[in-house]
């Protein structure tokens, strides 16, 4: 019997739950998403179509879903976490057979009403399932090899499936997210050291096999890594994205060029200006002040999650909140690092701002879980 179940009676009932939502997090979600609508309006050249309007609709649907998930007690989500994980893995497998190809990889599953990216979904379901696992697992066994192997398998199933699509970037992010949860759960440092070591040797292997029949990565991924290491080597080819993005960012200056005045993004010099590279438009039009504000909002959101997690005495709830916060971090940090020429180009959207149904809905759903954990915490 867990701590939570003992104290169930102290959690709020019915409509009162609304008052117990983490309003700071909710308001930040609204604020960040509003910035997103504004930017999508701007990159479309001052038009709601084709991006801002659908994004707004999805956001409304997503908020409804968030509140719905938040109203359901967290222990329900804990009980179905295994099932959700299983479903997401099935969807991931489904992509391999029925998926739509985009950017040279199979990523989307057309469900009719939404083009779902199951890899986005697994970022959360893996975290949820791992949290449930560690909640169930006796705390003293956490660092025992056999009990470490199980979560590793839980993580590696989606990772290998995503890697197979092939989507190296997302696979790595799922890996990091799972690893982060294991770290939070208190797994011994030695394992992480081991993983980092083996990753390093894996990287060596990846480059060693390049241009041989055994090549692990796809050709474009090798080129992207090359470009990352030396972006100026091919300014019109592979380095083009990073170069253009840095130009747009830098030309924004402190105050920016003003709303809808960003010449670089407005003139299509930027690739994927409405999705992965939307931060460049933002930083060009609103400058350093605008870019920093968005970064601050993201960090504030995480800070409120951390506070919530610290206050939460239930292990599952705390792990879920922190896992979601870290997953959220794993959206914006690599995305910003990428557009600033800091990290290789991996297909990761700027959370709540980039155009895209999957990540928006998945993130709002995840914050629904976070709110559920917050509302149903033990007092």
């Amino acid at each position, binding site marked *: *019997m867990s*701590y939570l179940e003992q104290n169930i009676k102290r959690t709020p009932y019915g409509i009162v739950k609304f008052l117990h939502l983490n309003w700071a997090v909710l308001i930040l979600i609204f604020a960040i998403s509003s910035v997103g609508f504004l930017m999508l309006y701007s990159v479309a050249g001052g038009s709601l179509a084709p991006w801002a309007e659908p994004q707004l609709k999805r956001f409304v649907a997503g908020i409804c879903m968030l509140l719905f998930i938040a109203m359901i007690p967290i222990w329900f989500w804990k009980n179905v976490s295994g099932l959700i994980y299983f479903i997401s893995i099935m969807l991931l497998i489904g992509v391999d057979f029925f998926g739509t190809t985009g950017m040279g990889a199979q990523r989307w599953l057309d469900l009719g009403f939404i083009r779902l990216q199951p890899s986005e979904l697994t970022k959360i379901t893996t975290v949820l399932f791992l949290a449930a696992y560690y909640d169930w697992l006796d*705390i003293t066994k956490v660092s025992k090899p056999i009990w470490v192997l199980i979560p590793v398998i839980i993580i590696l199933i989606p990772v290998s499936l995503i890697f197979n699509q092939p989507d190296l970037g997302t696979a790595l992010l799922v890996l990091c997210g799972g690893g*982060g949860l294991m*770290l*939070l*759960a*208190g797994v011994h440092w030695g394992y992480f050291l081991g993983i980092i070591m083996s990753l390093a040797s894996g990287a060596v292997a990846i480059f060693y096999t390049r241009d041989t029949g055994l090549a692990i990565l796809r050709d474009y991924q090798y080129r992207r890594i090359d470009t990352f290491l030396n972006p100026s080597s091919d300014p019109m080819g592979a380095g083009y994205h990073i170069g*253009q993005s*840095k*130009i*747009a*960012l*830098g*030309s*924004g*200056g*402190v105050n920016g060029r003003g709303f809808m005045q960003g*010449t*670089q993004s407005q*003139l*299509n*010099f*930027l690739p994927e200006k409405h999705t992965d590279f939307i931060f460049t438009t933002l*930083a060009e039009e609103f*400058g*350093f002040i605008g*870019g*920093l504000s968005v*970064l601050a909002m*993201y*960090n504030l959101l*995480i*800070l409120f999650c*951390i506070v919530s*997690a*610290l206050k939460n*005495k239930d*292990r599952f709830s*705390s*792990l879920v909140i*922190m896992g979601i916060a*870290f997953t959220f*971090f794993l959206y914006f*940090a690599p995305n*910003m*690092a990428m557009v*600033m020429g*800091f990290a290789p180009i991996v297909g990761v959207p700027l959370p709540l701002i980039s155009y895209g149904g999957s990540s928006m809905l998945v993130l709002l759903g995840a914050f629904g879980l976070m709110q559920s954990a917050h509302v149903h915490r033990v007092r």
Partner: protein
Amino acid sequence: MVTSEIDTEYNKGRHDRRIFILGGAMAIFSSTLAYRMHFLQVSESSKFRLLAEENRINVRLLPPTRGEIFDRNGILLAGNKQNFKVILIRDEIKDLDQVLLNLEKILKFSKSFKDQLKSEILKRSPLIPITVSDNLSWEQLSNVAVNSPILPGVSPEVGLSRFYPRSTDYSHIIGYVGAVGEKDIIKMDRDYREGKISEKDPLLEIPKFQVGKTGVENKLDRQLRGKAGNKRIEVNSVGRIMRELSRAESIKGADINLTIDTRLQHFVQERLSGLSASAVIMNVNSGDLLAIGSTPAFDPNKFIGGISHSDYNSILENPYNPLWNKSVQGSYPPGSTFKMIVSLAALEAGVISINDEINCKGFTEISGRKFYCWKSGGHGKVNLHNSLKQSCDHYYYELSQRIGISKIAAMARRLGVGEKFDLPLPLVESGIMPSREWRRKEKGQEWKIGDTLNTAIGQGDVLTSPLQLAVITARLATNSIVKPRLIKSFSGLSLPIESFKSLNIDPAAMREVRRGMYSVVNDKKGTAYSSRVEQDDKEFAGKTGTSQVTEISKSERKRGVSKNEDKPWKYRDHALFVGYAPFTNPKYSVSVVVEHGGSGSTSAAPIARDIMLAAQYGSLPPLSAYPEAQRSRIGSTLTKMQLVDPEKTLRSEYE
């Protein structure tokens, strides 16, 4: 229960520690991002802003319209026609082969052309517009426009291209334009270095920009070219134009009116056709050049877009050298037309008086070498008047010995031999007036008395261009230093007509020389009597000349192979004639040189007469002006000439 509680609390502490660690890691990473953002957007901002401007703004030159060239009456000689062309941008095409197939059907070009076009297209960047075909007709252009649905990436465009409506009439005067080449840029760079021009013209950087290659087009290229405008346009990453930021219109080049009279120019060209000849007619009072003929000519329109190999070869292989402007660039021994100069020099030096007679025996012997008069047996006793009328060589051998080369040269220079006229034409020939110094310097030889004798009859080293001969004649007719001019007005502003200074030659001497020239044409014994005019107010004065291309050797003279017709064409004598009309109140001076045409009296004089009559009548001369016996022959020659009204173009724009 209690243990569980403690356990949980204990683990909670450990759990919280991990949260702080992860939170701290995230905070560090976020700070790094903030720092990087600061670096890009604050520290390095100016650098990136510059790069962004380069990314965004393209400056496109707006080529100016080239100035047009008109004749003295405003008839268009060099204009700009609309050049309909079809361009193709590969980037916008999905199925190139299908589009080319459709184009082939619409524009009806050959399969080999299509294959060539395709390889050209594939060689270039897909974003660069490629000219599929230019100089299209309106029908072809509208066919392309109508069929645009099956021709994605293909668009009709209208540009300007040079066009010479009078075709061959002006090939040597106006010249032609062509695509800017390496040479043009090298010349511009040199002029810039030497300070001749204050700035380099960016227009020359435009591929295929048309610049003047020869003639007035070349010499006045900078004035005709105009000034480039520009537009700054915002482009997106694929180079598509988003909007125009600013625009400075180009300034059209200056329009130029030549002094040439198209009607006369056309007549001259037609009259000379079939010969390798040149003729210049000018107004003796204003110096206006009314016609500068040179045959054979070529169609300058063929050169504009790059001339075809076969056309160019046929021009190069023509022994009459069509590319050469013989009137201005040619230099010929003036032959007997030089005799007026010697007469004036002798009269001014006082070595002879008007009525002094010299006995012509047919030759002069100096230091064992015989100098022959053209008439074997001699003219007998001749005075100045008769010497000109009959063109007695002996008389001038004698005169030249009396005055010497220096005085002859001085007089010749006063009249224009060796003078380079300032005309906007390339390679204006200045001719040569030899002297002792010149001989020493140029040839490293001493001047001999024989050279003086040869010079006296316009042979030897003395060389003049047909243009010079016309100017010399104009000076003789007016006793003033007439200077030729080719530009009547510039951008609508008439250039002032110079009032020429007097030559300061004794009017009595001048009168006697002119009387001699009159008799050349109008006296029964005159060398050009058969070319007289039987219309009192249109009578003209002149002088024939026959200049030897090769010296007649002694053996030839003995064998009697001195007949011109027996020699190969290129060794035959040049036929010359200079004259002015009307005799009483001179208005026009003319010179005609028929290369290897035989004698001046039979080949050159009739042409000069026709030109002078055409100038005076302003149209085809009436037969009544000609001597009765010649009328039927001349009538048939004149009607055979295919004259085209000056208002009409000789060549359709879309040939």
